[in-house]
């Protein structure tokens, strides 16, 4: 193998599994250490800069970081990253003095944001401090998009959402709420220099089976129904409720139904349990609220009498995989009838752009989705950009935020006369953590604590009150112990071959046998030849140049390295050093406004 180029920021970035797995690349270990140090406000600001909605995401994120977490590869459960994020939000002080200053003199460029969800708000957050004049359009009475209309208050209290939305709106954003944009041309006709479309995926899939029309009054599309509940147009549901679908919207629907009078609420899913799209913790929470889940049931028809919904008939199926791994649902012949007063359909959602005229120069492609540049989010009409679910289909909040950051960079480049494809490099820093012979500036000791459970509100009380938050969050003490479970994967093992005397001390001490001194070979030959074969091909092998004494190389399997620092402590020559790698996705403005840092970044490190 060729020596690893640790000068490439992406090498060490990939070692920080959580950060690498996060669409917005939030520096997770950095803020977890700040939480452990009790510096909640600093931890919050690290988050806020990267993911804009720490309080919201600390409750509702899809958590791609957690399955990626290295801790999950050496023991049962990853660090409760999401819940720690919430701790930072819950315990922070006022951040008013840390928010970026908004220039009084604008730069003369006007931007319209269509849709008031996380993608648009992120664009606003990134561009307002640069002096842009920003108008935000949304058809709802309040900004927030699906964070407001789709996520029930028992998971995300309105106060948390309002606070984080308001930080952005207070940057001098002109909001045009309750304003439904039904023509992009009407916006283009106005003197906007750039337009960002962040309208989400607003159309819930329907289920066209017999009886659907006849019982329309008691059959609801899940996302519309949740929205009606959120805006208090609807406060009741029948006693017996069927929720169709296995995603997070289905989980939110069934749990909301339990709070609006549903006593016998069932979730019915076509696929098997293991293939359900909902996050495992949301499924758990639904089951804990006495909601059974019926898998492998395919809806056949709505049963009604005299125009009154009676229930639904399902065909039970077996899930069969053929040799190619293709799944088919084979009816068992058994049919099942469930009684129901209301049915909520939460089987998916789609994009819809009926309001974009097709003769404006915006090309639409497959699935009637806009044709976009995957990096710049620019459409074929150069002043129009897309982001969030509107760009590439339904994803999640953190992905929308990541899109927003990138679209903001593009818009800024576009309006400052730069090339939108000329993207700013990430911000990178690599600093030794050595404090003394056996002392590091991070807690290198590895705790054996298992993942801490988060306390829940009393179930009876929670089921009576739609707005009572169920998860209570960690208190400061539990948060400290959970934070200590973090392996500090951003503190990198940096190897300097010129200093190595090949004494094997690092090999002997490494608890997880990651380090090898071995004759170099191609990767396929090297991986199985290591002391413990490197089977996880998603994780890299860190290879040094040839060593002076034996012409071997150092080869370290990054897979289960605990970042405990023992290799560096036992190294007599300092050939190993523990160095903190800080990686930030550069935000809009960095290329045009040279030397300017995000002004909110005060004393966070």
């Amino acid at each position, binding site marked *: 193998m060729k020596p690893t180029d640790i000068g490439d920021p992406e090498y060490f970035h990939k070692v920080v599994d959580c950060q690498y797995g996060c669409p917005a690349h939030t520096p997770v270990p950095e803020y977890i250490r700040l939480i452990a140090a009790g510096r909640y406000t600093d931890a919050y600001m690290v988050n806020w800069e990267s993911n804009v909605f720490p309080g919201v995401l600390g409750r509702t994120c899809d958590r791609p970081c957690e399955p990626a977490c290295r801790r999950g*590869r*050496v*023991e049962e459960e990853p660090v409760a990253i999401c819940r720690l994020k919430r701790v930072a939000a819950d315990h922070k002080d006022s951040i008013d003095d840390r928010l970026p200053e908004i220039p009084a003199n604008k730069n003369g460029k006007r931007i319209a944001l269509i849709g008031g969800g996380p993608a648009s708000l992120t664009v606003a957050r990134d561009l307002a401090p640069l002096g842009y004049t920003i108008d935000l359009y949304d058809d709802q009475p309040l900004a927030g998009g699906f964070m407001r209309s789709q996520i029930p208050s028992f998971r995300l209290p309105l106060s948390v959402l309002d606070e984080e939305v308001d930080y952005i709106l207070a940057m001098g954003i002109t909001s045009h709420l309750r304003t439904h944009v039904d023509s992009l041309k009407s916006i283009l006709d106005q003197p906007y220099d750039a337009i960002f479309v962040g309208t989400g995926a607003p159309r819930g899939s329907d289920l066209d089976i017999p009886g659907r029309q006849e019982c329309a009054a008691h059959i609801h599309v899940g996302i519309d129904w949740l929205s009606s509940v959120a805006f208090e147009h609807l406060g009741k549901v029948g006693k017996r409720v069927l929720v169709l679908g296995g995603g997070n919207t289905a989980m939110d629907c069934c749990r909301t139904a339990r709070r609006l009078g549903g006593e016998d609420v069932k979730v019915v899913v076509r696929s098997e349990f293991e293939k359900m799209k909902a996050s495992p913790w949301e499924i758990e929470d639904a089951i804990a609220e006495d909601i059974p889940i019926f898998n492998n049931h395919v809806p056949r028809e709505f049963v009604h009498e005299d125009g009154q919904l009676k229930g639904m008939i399902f065909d039970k199926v077996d899930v069969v995989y053929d040799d190619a791994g293709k799944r088919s649902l084979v009816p068992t012949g058994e049919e099942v009838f469930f009684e129901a007063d209301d049915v909520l359909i939460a089987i998916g959602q789609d994009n819809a752009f009926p309001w974009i005229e097709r003769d404006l120069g915006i090309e639409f492609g497959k699935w009637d989705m806009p044709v976009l540049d995957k990096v710049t989010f620019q459409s074929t009409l150069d002043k129009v950009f897309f982001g969030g679910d509107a760009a590439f289909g339904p994803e999640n909040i953190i992905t929308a935020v990541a899109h927003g950051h990138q679209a903001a960079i593009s818009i800024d480049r576009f309006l400052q006369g730069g090339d939108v494809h000329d993207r700013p490099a990430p911000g990178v820093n690599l600093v030794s953590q050595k404090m003394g012979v*056996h*002392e590091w500036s991070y807690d*290198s*000791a*590895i705790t*054996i604590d298992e993942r801490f459970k988060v306390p829940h509100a009393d179930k009876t009380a929670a089921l009576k009150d739609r707005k009572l938050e169920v998860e209570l969050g960690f208190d400061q003490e539990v948060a400290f112990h959970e934070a200590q479970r973090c392996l500090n994967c951003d503190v990198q093992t940096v190897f300097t071959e010129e200093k190595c*005397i*090949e*004494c*094997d*001390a690092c*090999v*002997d*001490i490494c*608890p*997880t*046998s*990651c380090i090898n001194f071995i004759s170099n070979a191609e990767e396929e030959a090297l991986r199985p030849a290591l002391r*413990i*074969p490197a*089977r996880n091909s998603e994780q890299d092998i860190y290879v040094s140049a040839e060593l002076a*004494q*034996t012409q071997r190389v150092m080869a370290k399997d990054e897979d*289960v390295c*605990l970042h*405990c620092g*023992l290799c560096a*402590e*036992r*190294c*007599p*020559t300092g050939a190993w050093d523990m160095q903190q790698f800080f990686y930030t996705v550069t935000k809009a403005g960095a290329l045009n406004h040279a030397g300017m840092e995000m002004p909110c970044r005060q004393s966070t490190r």
Partner: protein
Amino acid sequence: MTYLRPQFRHPDSPVNRLGYTRQHYEGGLSTLCAGCGHDSISAAIIDACFELNIEPHKVAKLSGIGCSSKTPAYFLNGSHSFNSVHGRMPSVATGANLANRDLIYIGVSGDGDTASIGMGQFAHVVRRNLNMAYIVENNGCYGLTKGQDSATMDLESRSKKGDVNMYSPIDLVKIAIEIGATFVGRSFSGDKEQLVPLLKAAVSHRGFALLDVVSPCVTFNNHEGSTKSYAHMRNNNDAMPVDFVPMRQEITASYDAGTTHEVCMHDGSVVRLHKASEEYDIEDRQSALQAIHHHASQGKILTGLLYINRDGEELHEALGTARRPLNELTEKELCPGSRFLDSINAGLR
């Protein structure tokens, strides 16, 4: 801090026939200097015992005084251990071995503990062919007392301060061969490929097995001009590879044929040697000594299994002791009664 070792191990850690991972053979965290060769030897002992499927409680580890003699604290936490008086480990080992011949005895000593204060004891335990593996962690200096030259320091080797050693060194390997050791090897802490199989062979040998392991002292004896530094060993080590093939395991050749020699041990395992030359017969004392001399005269250090004699009687055989460990014999066996006394007395008349 180094005294905190993480509890987690690699999830794919290999498991031996007893169901143990290497973690079951670990000891406390080393307090020796970072980079000390002794730590590599401890790791090699862990590897050897793990791979030999030895139950840790069937091992007694013994040591004298010195950096080397601290190391039994850093491996085999589940074994019996005796950290004895300076240079007196052989006596303690002899007593323990006589009392319980069923244990595996691993002695760890250093160049000072063996070649200076313990020289007398060492000579006699070799002569008696006590059944044990005796490992000398040889760094050529007194690391605990700021690195003065030890008795194994080579002539004209330079100290860290720059002084040239003017005394002739004691070569424990040559002495041991001369006075009747039945298994003599030399190795280097930085060469586990050779050291681990040699350790396995030494533990499997019936009788006294000496392993003189050059183990650089990073703090006081790893500079240019030293003959016991990592760099010097790497440049001048003429290593004869060793394979240890446990009993019942098929032998698969991995070295060039022609110079490979197989030695069958008493327990049925086989030590395969890849010798430096055709002329060298490791079962011949003169041949071994000549080879060692020859390499030394060229400034090289010959490492590997240097000499073996499979016919030597170990101490229990020589003394004709009971098959059962003495510590298991009860009054019934030890005082068989006046009838036996009478017959013994009759035999002496």
